């Protein structure tokens, strides 16, 4: 699972998809996760990284993580490569 190559992501959380012209906004946690996915981290690695930095239980984080990635898929920003 990775972010499509042509997706532009700004430092402030602005996302642009040149193939559709759609743009999106991310909150800071969303931006951090998107960048971790782009860097090729697995779901387990992302969960470890986020839960070590933020006040959130792993089980709680995973709920929100899978909800978030389902939205990325719905917006066609993610491609499955696993």
């Amino acid at each position, binding site marked *: 699972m990775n972010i499509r190559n042509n997706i532009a992501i700004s430092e402030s959380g602005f*996302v642009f998809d040149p193939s559709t012209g759609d*743009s*999106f906004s991310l*909150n800071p*946690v969303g931006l*951090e996760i998107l960048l971790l996915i782009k860097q090729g981290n697995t779901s387990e690695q992302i969960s470890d990284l986020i839960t070590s*930095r933020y006040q959130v239980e792993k089980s709680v984080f995973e709920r929100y993580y899978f909800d978030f990635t389902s939205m*990325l898929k719905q917006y066609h920003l993610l491609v499955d490569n696993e």
Partner: protein
Amino acid sequence: MEKLTFERPVIQKINAGLPSKFGISSRMEPITDIEGIPVRRLIEEFGSPVFVFSEATIRKTYKEAWRAFSTRYPRVQFAWSYKTNYLNSICRVFHQEGSWAEVVSGFEYDKAITNGVPGEQIIFNGPDKSRDDLAKAIANGSLIHIDHFDELYEIIDLCGTSVKRPKVAIRVNMDTGIYPQWDRFGFNYENGEAWDALNRIMVSGKMDLLGLHAHIGTYMMQTGSYHIAADKLAALAVGLERKYNHVISYIDMGGGFASKNTLKGAYYPGSDTTPSFDDYAEAITSSLMKSEIKPENLPMLILENGRALIDDAGYLAGTVIANKRLADGRRATIIDAGVNLLFTSFWYEHDLRPAVNVSDQTEDTTIYGPLCMNIDVIRGSIQFPLLKKGDQYVIRRVGAYNNTQWLQFITLRPNVVMIDITGTPHIIRHGETLNTINDLESVPEHLESTDNGTTQRTK
């Protein structure tokens, strides 16, 4: 190293559109405390969800309305509309401020009596007054607002057995320019029925005709309608003086003033569009002052407002149960108060706020209540911050009708708390328990055993 506060990750599609110059800030300010008490503490102490009333806000709103009318008209009297909220403590705040009671059933009448309201300060409205109710109201010298001819003849009949003369008014419905026209309460003005009823009362000679009453609608946004209604009631008063040399004591303009809640489908928020008490007062009092009623005979002006006086003082605080994603990708947030507690969510876009500090990020969210019912929707679509399970919320302006129309459906009704003017919270209605419900039930003897009886029948 201390860990950072977690906010759930969110991505939102940006939909560019034409900006509105009347645009409203999308930033949602949290309500972290009510009258200085943290919402978190209120929920810890009194449970979740919990209704919270501010006594200070009730008194402040009452005084604001009173100032608007009493500075424009010499004789004004408010009567608290029991059906809007008949929790005894709420009623007593209004009675302390000087309100009479306006009731619409025998049950509400008895509640007003137990709240210490003198009989002659109770206005008895409504289409359903039993013979016993009427007899009691006559004996107590209450003001009976006659709704239909059957009631009028019942009162005439009761005059034969009653020592006291009934004190009555008639309810008048009329065309005030609003649609749909309310014509179910009282006697119609335009077709002459109201004048007919007044003649019958005067000719009977058995009652004291003290007033004229109209209840033209609810959530009235057009103050001009009150002006028209006051014109028509004043015309009836002048007619009585001319024909019978009878001067009425009061004109009762009913209630119906809008609160600052936003109606479903409204383009602008209610806080921007609702007329002020001054607007309503100007419409009504200017009509009475310019009427042909002689200045020395100007009747007392009675107002029976409920919603506009109590809505702002009520809050519903509670907790987020869960978040989920709907089929079309929209966020759904489930909270622990549904339409069972918030009946008004059927017609209002309620002002729902987080009770915790949140970031500026929001998502298009549907807010569901906890009931296992598809209609249990508190907000169909709201740009709402990213609350997590266990986070707390507050819904503003829920003081009117919810504590009288709430349903004991699936679950129990919670505590109702009032914060007094010193900032001390008091439970004014205890949360229901299983016993509250079961104590009203009885089980026939043959159903006392849970054994289905098959064993006995096969023997």
